């Protein structure tokens, strides 16, 4: 759901996150994972076939399990704000409900325009050394991404 408040469009969403076993396994073994929510606002009237992207938002969170604390700590990589959760399910639940994510200034959108909101979520393990990741990639998949989801945005 997109709401307009004080001249800015905000996203209140409902996502469905299904991390694979590798990601869960890595997290439980102390390897942080990164959750990324990519949001593109595309002008549907653009002469470009794939549309003209008006705004790109990348909300990234780093999720780490603290063994001593016994809690999952989620850190907003943009703001640095940390939040801890007792279970991974609570982490997923919190991430599945993005709240008031600023999208775009309303002045950039024309009333009656044809816009599309495209979103994609990615979970990947990025703390592995590059050389190891290449070799480890022979056995495991360190990244899982959803396909791009598109919905219409009417100013």
């Amino acid at each position, binding site marked *: 759901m997109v709401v307009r408040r004080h001249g800015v469009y905000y996203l209140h969403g409902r996502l469905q996150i299904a991390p694979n076993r590798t990601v869960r*396994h*890595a997290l*439980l*073994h*102390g*390897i942080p994972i990164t959750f990324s929510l990519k949001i593109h606002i595309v002008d549907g009237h653009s002469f470009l076939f794939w549309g003209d992207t008006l705004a790109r938002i990348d909300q990234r969170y780093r999720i780490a399990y*603290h*063994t*001593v*604390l*016994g*809690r999952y*700590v989620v850190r907003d990589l943009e703001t*640095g704000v*940390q*939040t*801890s*959760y*007792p279970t991974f399910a*609570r982490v997923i639940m*919190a991430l599945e409900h993005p709240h008031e994510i600023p999208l775009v200034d309303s002045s950039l959108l024309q009333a009656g325009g044809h816009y599309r909101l495209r979103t994609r979520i990615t979970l990947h393990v990025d*703390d*592995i*050394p*590059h*050389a*190891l990741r290449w*070799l*480890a990639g*022979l*056995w495991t998949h360190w990244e899982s991404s959803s396909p791009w989801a598109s919905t219409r945005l009417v100013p």
Partner: protein
Amino acid sequence: MDTLGKLEPVGKHPTRSLKPRVLPLLTAATLLAVFCTFVLLASTTENPGLFGKLDVPLLVLVVFGTTGLLSLIAVQIIHLGRIYPRREPGWNLIRRMVRTFVGLALIPIVLICAFAAVFIRNSIRSWYAPPVARVVHTAVALSRGAIDDTLKKDLHITRRLARNLSLAAPPAWPFLLGRLRSQSHALDVVLLDSNGRIVAMDSAFPFLLLPPTPSRAALEEAAHASTNVVLSPGQGHRYTVRAVVPVPTSDPFARPLVLEAVFPVSGHETRTARQVERAYARYEELTLLRRPLTWSLILTLILVALLGVLALVTSALYFARRIVAPVDELVGAIGAVAEGRLDVRLETTGDDFGPLKRPFNRMIGRLETAQRTAEEHRQREERERALLETVLAHLSAGVLVFDEQRVLELANEAARRLLGLNREQDVGRDVGALRAAHPALEDFFATVDELLPASREEIRREIVLGGGRRRRVVVARVTALPELPGIGRGGAVVFEDLTDLLEAQHDAAWGEVARRMAHEIRNPLTPIQLTAERIGHRFFDRLSENDRAWLQHAVETIVRQVEALQNMVRAFGDYARAPDLRFTRFDLSALTAEVADLYRGRYPRIEIVTDLAEPAPLIEADEERIRQVLHNLLRNALEALYAQANGQVLLRVRYDLVQGDAELLVEDNGPGFSPVMLEHAFEPYTTSKPRGTGLGLAITKKIIEEHGGHTLLSNRAEGGARIAVVLPVNERTRAERLRAAAHRYHPSEAEPL
């Protein structure tokens, strides 16, 4: 010190084609990359945690180092391929040295790699050994226990604060919160309602307008009352304990309140917890990455070993070349000397082979000096010999040199031409062998054989040689030579061909005789004839019949004889007259046919056959004189066949335009020339006919020689005479022949005997 002069580097090595700056730069960069690889690898060995940070630089360095070493090896091999295109001895030595170096070092490298791989696997496996896992998990448990104690303590304090707060009236809460926070050493104390709104608060950071409120999750957890205290990573470096407890109340209608208190965790506890946390996380991470980590290290080890092998091969090639280069240089110099190049010198500075090269240079220097001296002597002798040969070749006289054993050592060109000797076959023969090989020169070599043991005084002897087509007269002088090396007391024979000179003198004498005869006899002939005729006229009528007949017969006889004498005088006049030729261009074949036609039919028993070349080129000559020659020759042939049945005369004309000659051949099947005629046929007054003047062939020879040609007499093998007349066909050839004839007495222009 070498005193042989300028030293020149020797070698068959081509100029190094690689840019002089590229190879050192490539070598330095490669060595630097390999060195950095080893340093980084050593660092990661000491601290495996660095591997994750240095993996990319390591990979880049390994790739660069490998590429650089491969390039260096390729450059070395290409260079060696250019130096040894035919796998020469130096190449085999380098190959063996490289094979030995690599073989010696490869086995230890492989063994070390295998051992290191096993060691790495075992080492990594040991990280996850059960004791280690137990230690890690015990440390985590201990740390959690300590944290739990802190949580319980802070939760207890927070509950006590909540109870104290519940006993006070709401207006006193702010003041009470401040006192309680100060007493409990909490960082923040916040009283909130169930919606999260702040009712009262106090903070250790008074500059904060609002303390950090508990999150919705914290409030929810507090509502469950079972997880109302958590240890959270603070925003700073320390952990904080956040406890949320409900404020007890006895009023059932009062709004529910919760108290959140945030307590700092001591620095020691925080550090301990973080260290345990990091160690555990590291341990778990390594557990997860054990297999790729193992293979990464082994792969890196293999790459490093490969780098080592490549570096080894490069070094082996380089040092093998350095070691072989002096030997190769020496071999090249020896090869050059063997090919005759004595200007080669070897570099003797900064080389272990200097003690070998310096004597080599001295030896080659001496050889060069000796060769130069010998060459100078040879050239001087060659010049003198060439000069002598030139002088001998241009001598008009023939020169023969015999050694003490009478072996012919030298025959100059004039001698070879005059005697018809062959340099390869005859030089080296003794006089006896020469006599046997040249029967025609029997008289000559017999005389030489007789005179050779000559004293120092010159002996002169005239020798007549008749074995060839012409009879020749030579005058030989035999002189003893002083004793010479290789010859001993030999002798020199110097001879000159006087044939042409004598013939010229002979012809001149005959010409003078003919001229005088013509002059002295022709003058009285006419008065004699006129007187005889006048006597006949005067006395014819006075005499009797008988006397008249006698007188008439006598007068006619006198007149006929006078006419015969006049013809003879005219012939002598023709012979003696000065040449006055009128050259025109005419067809010799046509002229020959015309003359032949004049005589056909006159002699029924004689057949005149002509063989005339067609097409016939025009020759340049005095046509009337040539006609006279044709008449003379044809008349001679016909007269020779006069008493013979089935006589035949052949007239043949041929042209050799390459030599510029026309040949007229007159053959008959008569008795041929007698030996005396063959020898003296061209001399005036020589004839085999009773009524001939003996001037026909002499005049013919004279006319032909005036045209620059020559006449040859011979007998046919099948019987009969053959006269060949050779005439130049144009002015250029004629001029050349006349010029040669002017020096006919010169031996170099004479025909072989």
